[in-house]
């Protein structure tokens, strides 16, 4: 068995943040309030209270305290709760990259897919969002309805990865 541990994280409030107009001023307001910039496509950024993962050109997945965001967005965007639809799965250990290649089409083994990177991809026919926390940890955001099957798939696959 390869070195990867699959852990389901507790349910947490998640939101989709979409900006439809005045992107630059919104970004400026956000940076001033949050202390970090809105991450670019394929990236994530955050702090202990708030983490954003950009997964569409105008949409970010937001994890954490969103209380300040409606004020930042004003009429230029919206915040929608989506936490009920997602199960957060932590893949930890050196083998998480190898594991993500199982049934995968995204180059999770690339050294460029490093800490702070994110991706939206298909794994074994299921849409999954990935967020590299550090060299040994990657978070996968899995649709609730597929989470049971995906976790089983990953646990089974992990057994054979060294073969």
């Amino acid at each position, binding site marked *: 068995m390869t070195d990867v541990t699959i852990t389901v994280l507790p349910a947490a409030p998640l939101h989709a943040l979409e900006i439809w107009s005045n992107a630059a001023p919104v970004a400026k307001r956000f940076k001033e309030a949050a202390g970090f910039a809105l991450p670019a496509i394929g990236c994530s950024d955050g702090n202990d209270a708030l983490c954003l993962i950009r997964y569409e050109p105008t949409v970010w997945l937001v994890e954490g305290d969103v209380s300040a965001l409606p004020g930042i967005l004003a009429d230029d965007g919206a915040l*929608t709760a*989506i*936490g*009920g639809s997602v199960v957060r799965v932590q893949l930890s250990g050196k083998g998480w990259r190898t594991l993500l290649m199982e049934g995968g089409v*995204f180059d999770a083994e690339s050294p460029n897919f490093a800490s702070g990177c994110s991706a939206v991809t298909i794994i074994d*026919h299921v849409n999954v969002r990935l967020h590299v926390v550090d060299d040994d940890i990657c978070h996968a955001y899995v649709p609730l309805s597929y989470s049971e*099957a995906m976790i089983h*798939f990953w646990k089974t*696959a992990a*057994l054979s990865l060294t073969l």
Partner: protein
Amino acid sequence: MINFSFDGKTYQAEKGDTLAAALLRNGIGLVGRSFKYHRPRGIMTAGVEEPNALVTIGDGGRSEPNTRATDVFVYEGLVAKSQNRWPNLSFDIGSVFGLAAPVLSAGFYYKTFFGSAKRWMIYEYFIRKAAGLGNAPTKADPDHFSQRGAFCDVLVVGAGPAGLSAALEAAEAGKRVILVEQDNILCASLIRDGHDRDGAWVEATQTRIRAAGGRILTRTTASGYWEHDLVTLTQRIAEPGQIPPHGVAQRLWHVRAGQVILATGSIERPMAFAHNDRPGVMLSQAVRTYVRRFGVVPGKRVVIATNNDDAYKTAYALKAAGAEVVAVLDARPAPAGADSGLPVYNNAVPLSTNGARHCLKSVTARVNGLTQSWDADLIAVSGGFTPVVHLHMQAGGTLDWNDTAQAFVPAASRQNVTTIGGAANPEPVFNVVPVSTPKKSFIDFQNDVTLSDVDLAWAEGYRSVEHLKRYTTLGMATDQGKLSNMAALGRLAEKQGVAIPEAGLTTFRPPYTPVTMGLLAGAGAKDAGAHVRRLALYDVHAAKNPIWQPLGYWFRPRTYPMGSETLAQAAMREAKAVRSNVGMTDVSTLAKFEVSGPDAAAFLEIICATTVGKLAVGRGRYTFMLREDGFVFDDGTVWRLDENRYLLTSSTGGADRMATHISYVRQYLCPHLRVSAINVQEHYAGIAVAGPQAKATLAALIGEEPPRHMSTVPAMIAGVPVIVLAASYSGERAFEIYVEASHAGPVWAVCEAAVAKQGGALYGLEAMEFLRIEKGHLVVGGEVDGRMTPHDLALDKMLNKAGGYVGASGLSRPALFETGRRQLVGLEAIEGNIPEGAMLVTGEGASPQGHVSAAAFRILEGGSIALGQLTDGFARHGEELIATSPTRGQMARVRVVAPHFYDTAGERYRD
């Protein structure tokens, strides 16, 4: 030593033996029977090109027919069985087909099996009995198959000396490298051929490749080369029939490579002469492989037949192993090999062999125009080398003719692929024209195609190589012509009087070697190709032992039987509970989209064909959506939750399609709108409470007056915030409660207790279907089948008169308003029960004028009813028709009515 069995008898093999090597080690020459004539066949090659030694490996669901004995490594307990023989391999009744060979020539099927359809029923029986070699297992495969993606800068296919060197160079240049080899060791050719590079060099090189981050995969075949340098690899984790570690037998790799280097080598060609298919006729390099790699000497008295220098290495290897080389038949006129110390005969080609079922006894040759024979138990032939250009061709590359090597070699590439080593530079050979009788000179051993079959096809007018291939079945079996194609091309060119490249070339298609179906299905092989989507409340339902029903990728409770109830009984009980009291069901799978922003209403009026803009906060409306051609493709409800926030629901089955549609409208048609449309299908679990007592039940739950029909309020149930929508699909007063899925459990529990307190029941999809049919509500995939306009479904009065929605232009086409269109109707049975899916006809033998899209029974009164589509149906109410399903032998007399059988005024769901 390793124990294995062949046809029920136990033998022993050495570690590292292929099954072919092990059989030869045990003196077994007869391994199989040929496809058509059941001729005795032995082992011809030592690689994946093997056409003869096809066996079934393993037992039960793990058995694998048509496995090449040369491509399976023996493991303890391996079970191998010969194929296409009865009652046994030595005495095969089917060999009588050989006596009929003169009439079983090319095109036999086309010339014989024609006539009336009734005759075909007879032919088919015999053709099916005779078809195929091994038998497919009848039990399910217990193993799993994995699929994995990989990316690399350089993919090297073939780990011979050239491939290994290329991989090392790339890896040490900092490239991400994958090196694949179909054998279980690297550089097996070095053992076969002897080389100044030895095993230590191989070991050191692969260590350096791995140290540089390279990945080396053995027992892995590059089976397909696709667009954009995507190469599929099939990796054997376990040998055929072997119990795999951790249950995974094979892995399919999808490799996207920056560059592909093909070091695939070449395949030795046989020679065409009479009875060249007997056990004891082998390819020269194969013989050398068995001698040097496996320590097995396949014959004691050996004749070598060649048109090149390479076969001399085989002669030396055999001599060194103690065999007697009685003759080297060298087709070249020059006195090559004069100093070899071997009995070399120049200008010599084999004419025929003689022997028994299990072995070879003698070889006859023409030497300088004279016939000469030798007693021999083995003939090792080398007719030249065919570069393995399959992947190059699959990648869209072209070939050049190399006259010196008498072979096609890779030329221009259309993708980033390069061929190196023996595949690019085959050894020079001398062109040999067959001189023996063509009737028994086989060129395609798998399909029993002889030179005379090619001659016959030519005589019957088949000029194109593609036609020749299909007429003779040449190159069509598991080996896909790896040994036969060049011989056939040579013969065709000879007939045409042209050079081989002018005769044409057939197409190389994936896979290079056979790929098992389970591998293509991957992990989904056990689940019909996809994961099952689980409801948020799955465990709650599972505890009640419902009958589950697949719905798209979902599984939903169809009904909750009590005691010994049948499905129909349980569903009817549940439906009656809804009609007379209160019922509760899980509607979580409905598509749901939260649409926010100042332009949300404008956006929804583009998505929906009904008006939305005037909807007050807290109100909802039934809506439907059109494709751009004006046909209805989904329906649902839209709710104004807040000033600039709406909830749009649509069908479960169309959820993904609707998400795509919304994204398309948002991104392409309306990028300017200030709106966000987020898919919240799974964010909210949904619980429907329906029935005359639903209002009272809900009032007790939320502690306030429930919203009136088509209104919505936020509320709290079990301390959890919920959204309550008052909407009815059943035809009764009903509510849908939406709650964040992660908190759905407590809400369901409280609701279920409240329903039970009222004397109500849970209901599933079957009862829901009864209810909605009786009420005349549509279902996407049933009445909404992609061919119906709003007018056909009597929804036209709800269309947004201002237009502007998707499909408005398409809907304006005059043809959509002409008579003769199918229209939604209701059907009442006059006699019999209406079969779902039945055709609607005016009388026996008449053309169908529509069909039954859904059928049920009246819930309280009884009687068979249905919804259907009928040509000009709106104008035919009162007409009597026949609903007939000939395939099921069912029929009912029906009366056309309005498609509403219950509470046509809609009074029951209004306060």
